[in-house]
């Protein structure tokens, strides 16, 4: 399974979210490849789950994976809850 974290330039914010997601996955015991990139490249990169903050996630719809839209990139509880829901939907959990 591949999770792609996306922000405008694919440098800072998406990288921070990637590190948070990796630590959450470790806690949950889920194995997945997590990487980050910019909005433009995301459209050409296949992933099972796309993650971004709500100000950009509308542009991630229709690429062909689940989209997780975060209200805040620092709210780890929300991040964990949404990941859990998506994993259940995909049958991973």
């Amino acid at each position: 399974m591949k999770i792609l974290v996306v922000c405008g330039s694919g440098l800072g914010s998406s990288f921070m979210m990637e590190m948070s997601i990796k630590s959450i996955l470790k806690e949950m015991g889920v194995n997945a490849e997590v990487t980050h990139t910019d909005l433009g490249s995301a459209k050409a990169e296949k992933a099972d789950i796309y993650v971004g903050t709500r100000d950009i996630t509308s542009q991630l719809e229709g690429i062909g994976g689940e989209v997780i839209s975060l209200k805040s990139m620092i709210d780890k509880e929300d991040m964990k809850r949404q990941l859990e829901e998506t994993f259940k939907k995909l049958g991973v959990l």
Partner: protein
Amino acid sequence: MSFFKFLMYDVLSVPAVLVGLVALVGLLAQKKSATDCIKGTIKTIMGFIILGAGAGVVVGALNHFSEMFQYGFGISGIVPNNEAIVSIAQKAFGKEMALIMFFGMIVNIIIARFTKWKYIFLTGHHTLYMGIMIAAILAAGGMSGVSLVAVGSLILGSVMVFFPAIAQPFMKDITGTDEVAFGHFGTTGYVIAGLIGKWFGNKEKSTEEMELPKALSFLRDTPVAIAFTMGIIFIISAIAAGKEFTEGLSGGQNYIVFSIIQAITFAAGVFVILQGVRMVLAEIVPAFKGIAEKLVPNAKPALDCPVVFPYAPTAVLLGFLSSFAAGVIGMFILMALGLPVIIPGVVPHFFCGATAGVFGNATGGRRGAILGAFVHGLLITFLPVLLMPVLGNLGYANTTFSDADFGVVGILLGNILKIFVH
């Protein structure tokens, strides 16, 4: 002895290898497996080489732009873009940058460990950009070798704590928590926007009660935004320089087609550099974060500027528009004064202007967002003009550092050095 010489002069003097070693130290400190260490080190070295490769692409387009602008308007035009200037600068200062970045992060951890400022600056690309700018300025001021690296690392480590510290009162307002800090080298502009909001704004009338069209959201796509705005600027310059002159540069290709292709080429170069930067940081930042969290109790991660965007999406757009408007007005003021003209870059205005809008909104509502971002826009238009003379040869690159703190730190540092050296 000959092996030592080989190590010193043939291996450690290659900037890409040095950057790879920084990553390797981080990987080893985290006790990663041998395959992870090898993979991570190679990818980091590759990233640095990609970062440098982008320079060739951006420089070609920038030179064409500069000739057209110069011929058309009779003054020089500068495109502020961090990625472009860093990619050009790494040829001369790659080695110093690698060392300053490495020791700067250590200084950051030491300050956070032993003082009450617990900030750990995690916006790695800004650490890299600031490191290379400091190296260039110290070199232009006459320093070299160990003293350059030592002074540079102390300055870098200090600003990695200083800027999050001055942003924190506003961050608490915006996010409602004191756990997370703000780490982006445009902070001078945001703090000023926050103060302007406080003095002239009205907190009760938030931007978030307003409705703005979403049509501009495509500008969040950085390479597209760069291609789009550079296209407009290239076409204006081509028309000003005239068909004949421009087609002389293009070797006969239609001047409008040439302009559009050059604009997209510049954006493509930035895209390549971004990819390189991402690979350079992929191992270094998590290692820095992991080590810092172990050594600094209650460390506060200082995060990149979009961390505040979801708290006030309307202020993001309003801030961008207001900052960009100031950039355009500032450009005409510079033209009238006959100074090098700073072309309003959509990326600095979008990211930094937007952040200034959020800070202004937090203290002064919509009036705070508009006024604060406007002053920020003027700031990032005029600071680069003062920054370029202290950058040495890099000051002639047709591009320069864009965000406010690079200007503030660079101008201060460059002029302090002048007092000591001359």
